[in-house]
């Protein structure tokens, strides 16, 4: 594995499968009386969150602490407009504190790349979401969830529905699922698909009803109502009618098909309450899996002298 996890494309198939297998082992930790492993004792993990995100930060914090790492949380107000506390100055401060890994979430695409490549820090950089670019650990926990329900992802059909243009979750998932052998279809109104999408390793469709019956997994993305003002769709009602997953559409899914959402959901917009709370929905499980997957990532990056070398066949 590479020293930094900046993009889902940083993971080879072997790397990705190693993460998933490791997460599987770590998941059972939640059932033990002592929910701790000593593997990262003495390591310092810094959560550098420039964007509000309690959920992801807590997930990474729990993951680091369960591996006995020391955790430092830094929540900075940093929009892409105001520089205020600059990314660079914050990074230099953390470096002085001796961070082994920096988990960074930022509103600017490419901020983790700058951290990793600028020479400001020596630690491993884990991208916890950068702008509209990527969110690799989300894709990993999504793939882990799919794998636990469906087994191997080779040839599986995954439909990702919603605001692809602004979604880092969509980008990371498209890359990782492809690496794991799945077929991805992005479903969205034309205004919410990026220019040049023909070059991505995915299918696209404007017609949700045509795609749903063939899907093994349906992943709904959050759609912000404010996008209405950018002219991406005329009204929230029209969006829900054409691209929302409601009970009627859920009934067209195959028996084994699961429904996912990276959260937070806008109930009534892209997904209705009855779907979110149905048996098909694995949305709550995704959150649990998030901790195990992030533990796996942190362990594989920091648990040894260097990141894990993934090879087939596990040696002693």
């Amino acid at each position: 594995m590479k020293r930094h996890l900046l993009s889902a494309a940083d993971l080879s198939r072997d790397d990705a499968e190693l993460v998933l297998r490791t997460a599987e082992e770590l998941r059972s930790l939640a059932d033990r009386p002592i929910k701790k492993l000593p593997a990262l004792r003495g390591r310092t993990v810094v959560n550098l969150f420039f964007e509000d995100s309690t959920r992801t930060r807590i997930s990474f914090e729990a993951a680091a602490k369960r591996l006995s790492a020391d955790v430092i949380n830094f929540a900075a107000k940093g929009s892409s407009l105001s520089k205020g506390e600059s990314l660079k100055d914050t990074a230099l401060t953390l470096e002085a504190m001796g961070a082994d890994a920096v988990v960074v979430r930022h509103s600017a695409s490419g901020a983790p790349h700058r951290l990793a490549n600028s020479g400001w820090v020596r630690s491993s950089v884990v991208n916890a979401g950068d702008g509209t670019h990527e969110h690799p650990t989300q894709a990993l926990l999504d793939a882990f969830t799919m794998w636990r329900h469906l087994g191997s992802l080779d040839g599986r059909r995954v439909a990702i529905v919603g605001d692809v243009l602004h979604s880092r979750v969509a980008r990371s998932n498209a890359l990782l699922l492809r690496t794991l052998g799945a077929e991805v279809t992005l479903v969205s109104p034309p205004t919410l698909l990026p220019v040049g999408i023909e070059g991505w390793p995915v299918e696209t469709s404007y017609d949700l009803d045509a795609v749903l019956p063939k899907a093994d997994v349906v992943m709904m993305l959050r759609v912000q109502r404010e996008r209405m003002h950018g002219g991406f769709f005329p009204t929230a009602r029209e969006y829900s009618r054409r691209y929302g997953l409601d009970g009627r559409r859920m009934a067209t899914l195959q028996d084994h098909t699961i429904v996912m959402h990276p959260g937070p959901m806008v109930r009534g917009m892209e997904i209705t309450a009855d779907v979110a709370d149905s048996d098909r929905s694995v949305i709550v499980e995704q959150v649990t899996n998030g901790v195990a997957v992030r533990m796996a990532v942190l362990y594989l990056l920091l648990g040894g002298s260097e990141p894990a070398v993934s090879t087939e066949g596990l040696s002693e």
Partner: protein
Amino acid sequence: MPAPNAAPDATTDDGRTVLDARDIGRALTRISHEILERNKGASDLVLLGIPSRGVPLAERIAERIASVEGYDVPVGSLDVTMYRDDLRMKPARALLPTQIPGGGIDGRTVVLVDDVLFSGRTIRAALDALNDIGRPKAVRLAVLVDRGHRELPIRADFVGKNLPTSLVESVRVRLQGIDDVDAVTIQGSTEGEVA
């Protein structure tokens, strides 16, 4: 030392065979009886194999116990990767499966099962791992081969074969299911071939 009833390939490039399939079978049978004798029966036992090869050994011991006592001893696995004291000396290692049987280990007698006992560090790590899982009444250790050179005060309760070795030699255990054959061989010996 040539092995008793050595297999025809005793001196191939794989090294000297010191235990063949039958030897291994007999050793495991004896170990299983010794465990039952020491424990005065099979109740409250839990067998935990240390992956990779400790696991099939633990399963075979459980089979033998079942055929003698008619009792299914819980069998599982205990991966010690994260508790190793040399964790930071090499790139991060993949985890192996840990499966603690449903009844847990609190108040029970855990028998750790491994293929080779050498420096003792793996067993020390296993003890640390057990500590985070529960509080057994007792912990015992069964190994197929004890090759000496302990670096920690650890000893096995049940041993298949004591095998004095020099540090330049390496002991290789192969088991059906993981490998294609049951055999214990020594490689890198500076001694001559079969005397």
